[in-house]
């Protein structure tokens, strides 16, 4: 056995290959010490060395579920790399599962925090994530299908679903797509998202990424399919609709009216962040007669010192705010507060006093930035962040009527999207948990 392994792992110095002898039996053993943990001592070395009893050792090999016969030499390399110990006694090869678990505690939510909901989040370890999920979705029908993806990273992923609720058509579509994936390195959930969506140049996300086990449980109950990936804190949920991206987990825990109010507020926020900069240009440069006279004068008065057309102003301010957002994400946490203070000062006061932008524009910029962050899902928030630029451009060319026409086109675009064959932006579909088995009928609105 050792010869074969040594041939496969030539010059790999951190692989331990040895023939040990306790005086009764010689044993060939091979494993990566860095991938295996202390369990190898109690599970293998102690019974083999000073507590050795041939009968007991044989019994252990046969009865302990961690020992599996591994006679196929093709599997050996893979097993070693996954953290198994390979051993050969009495002419038979066994594998012993002793992979190191790096994570022993659930993570805390960082991207999707909730006020009243649970604070635990997925970790970067797939077994821990399975545990978190099984605890919350505790039924025998929860099915897991393991896959290995990435020809170099060999990342293990799990496809999870409730086999009584899942739509088999979508499941088969997903299996097909997973089989067709050719990927070198699968390091983050986002790269799997990219592979699973048909077109990479898509504006809006059609697969939901979440770090919250409770959200995954809620989605499983709705018959969705979940993919968890080893080494990623995020689970993928599909198929989803636009409204799932606008859904914060607090909505499940808050009282009815608060929930409604917050939902309406989020949609108003998304609308404002897309429309406001464009309508500023349209109103100032194209159709000032739309607003009542007093308001039009106020806006124009605040722009009195600004020496260039409104779209330049808008681009300047939007660039500043985007740069500020980007900087505060990338900066180390210690310097982060400095950036926001400096940026806030410039945006808030100096730019306006210097006569570079109007004070109304500063209000608009902050409203745009703030209402962008109201969106609970970071993926969707980014998409919306980008959406305001086409509107700014069309407002430069056509004024307010162009904005309305583009809004129409955006609505059609959203209705046009499909997430695994399911409509992305269709209202009032029958709720899936009202249906015992949601077949393909769900799509037929």
């Amino acid at each position, binding site marked *: 056995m050792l010869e074969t392994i040594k041939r496969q792992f030539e010059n790999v110095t951190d692989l331990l290959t040895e023939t040990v002898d306790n005086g009764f039996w010689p044993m060939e053993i091979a494993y990566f010490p860095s991938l295996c943990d202390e369990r190898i001592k109690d599970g293998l070395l102690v019974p083999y060395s000073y507590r050795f009893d041939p009968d007991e050792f044989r019994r252990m090999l046969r009865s302990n579920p961690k020992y599996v016969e591994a006679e196929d030499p093709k599997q050996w390399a893979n097993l070693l790399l996954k953290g198994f110990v390979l051993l050969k006694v009495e002419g038979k090869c066994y594998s012993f599962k002793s992979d190191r678990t790096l994570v022993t505690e659930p993570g805390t939510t960082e991207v999707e925090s909730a006020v009243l909901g649970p604070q635990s989040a997925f970790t970067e370890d797939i077994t821990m994530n399975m545990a978190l999920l099984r605890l919350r979705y505790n039924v025998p029908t929860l099915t897991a299908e393991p896959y290995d993806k990435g020809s170099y990273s060999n990342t293990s992923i799990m496809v999870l679903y409730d086999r009584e609720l899942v739509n088999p058509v979508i499941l088969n579509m997903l299996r097909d797509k997973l089989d067709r994936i050719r990927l070198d390195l699968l390091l983050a959930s986002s790269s799997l998202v990219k592979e699973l969506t048909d077109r990479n140049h898509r504006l809006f996300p059609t697969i939901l990424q979440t770090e919250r086990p409770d959200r995954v449980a809620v989605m499983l109950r709705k018959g969705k399919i979940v993919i968890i990936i080893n080494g990623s804190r995020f689970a993928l949920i599909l198929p989803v609709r636009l409204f799932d991206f606008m859904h914060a987990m607090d909505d499940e825990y808050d009282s009815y009216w608060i929930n409604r109010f917050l939902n309406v507020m989020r949609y108003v926020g998304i609308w404002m962040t897309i429309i406001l900069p464009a309508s500023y240009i349209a109103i100032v440069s194209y159709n000032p007669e739309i*607003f009542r006279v007093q308001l039009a004068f106020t806006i124009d008065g605040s722009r009195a010192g600004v020496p260039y057309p409104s779209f330049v102003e808008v681009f300047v301010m939007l660039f500043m705010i985007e740069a500020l957002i980007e900087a505060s994400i990338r900066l180390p946490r210690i310097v982060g507060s400095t950036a926001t203070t400096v940026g806030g000062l410039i945006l808030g006061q100096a730019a306006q006093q210097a006569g570079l932008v109007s004070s109304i524009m500063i209000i608009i910029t902050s409203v745009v930035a703030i209402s962008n962050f109201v969106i609970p899902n970071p993926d969707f928030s980014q998409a919306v962040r980008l959406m305001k630029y086409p509107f700014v451009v069309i407002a430069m060319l056509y*004024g307010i*009527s162009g904005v309305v026409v583009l809004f*129409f086109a955006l609505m059609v675009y959203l209705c046009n999207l499909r997430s695994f064959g399911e409509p992305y932006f*269709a209202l009032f579909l029958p709720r899936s948990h009202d249906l015992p088995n949601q077949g393909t009928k769900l799509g037929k609105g």
Partner: protein
Amino acid sequence: MSRYFYYHVLYVGLINIMIFVPWTLFQNRFHGAVSAMAIAIVIGTIMAWTTTSLFLRFPEMALSDIVKAYFPRGIALIVNVIGAIIWGFAGILVVYAYSSTIQQFFNPDMNPYLFLLLMTAAGVWGATRCSRTIQFAHEVLMLLCTPLILMILFKAIFSPWLDWDAIRVSLGYVRTRPSLNSLSAALFVFAGYNTLVIFNRLIPANTKIRQRWIIPVFCSFFLFVSFFIPIGFHGTVGVADYLYVWSITSDSMIMQYGFVYRVLYVFLLLYTALSLMFTMNTWHTAMEFIKACHPRYTPQPDQYPVKAVNWWITISFAVLTFAYAAWANDQRNQLTYQSWLIVRSISEVVVLLILVWCFFVSRRKRRSSIRQQTAAQNS
């Protein structure tokens, strides 16, 4: 799902303003417009009722599929081509009317073709999508438009400047004989059910379209509003002075609280959405008719991504729109609208007759097949 059907009924009822229905009626307001409206309510309701019921007998089939199944190929081809012309023209007319409205009231300095380009581009983009996408979009856009529609309607009806006497006076002309022009104009308001010629594909078998009272109630309401409200604002005589009557009428109203002062702008923004919905829908229907001319065409109401042929057909509609805009002036335009309205009304009757015929043929076939089966069982 019957609610999608009613969205079509509602927005087609509302779009009548862009197809110069009120203008046509005002020209005949002393010569039978009111009586034409009364007759149109009766005829429109009956036609809507029977056509809808007949379409439900052919589940998941568009008109072109039905005709293909029951008529020889030549006739089917003719029906498809005529359908495509009528529907394609509807979109062209509305896009043209709307962009000239916008040019008058919103961007008078802008090159008219520039705005037409934007409108046709949006119409092409919408029309190339698959039928199901268009249905979803209708629902979203109708819901977004509803508050604006309600606001304008309430503003108009409860406005102190609305002269109810003028309305009463024009109502007095109910006994004059209606003309074909005004009748076909008034019938257009009820034409929303005609969208079933394509969208019947999305209605699965055994669906019942309930609450059909919505068609007469809402469409008559829209008809009365678009006719009587301008009369109430401008008087029985003055109302015929304007070509874009409804834009002027909405400009007679103001909003005292809020950012926007003149209702005109709300009205124009609302009709941007409605006109685009109408264009999207009619061009899509015309496109499906043209695609159905191909002998090996199989309908795919839920298709993603769409085929390239969709783009070519709708882009040709856009090009035709430009050609029409270059040709048209106000007189020619009025003539086209009125002839289109008349042709459309006739086509509606033809569609009804086709459906009745197909219905009887299908019943006879079914009966004979049942008879054969029972005969086979007995022997």
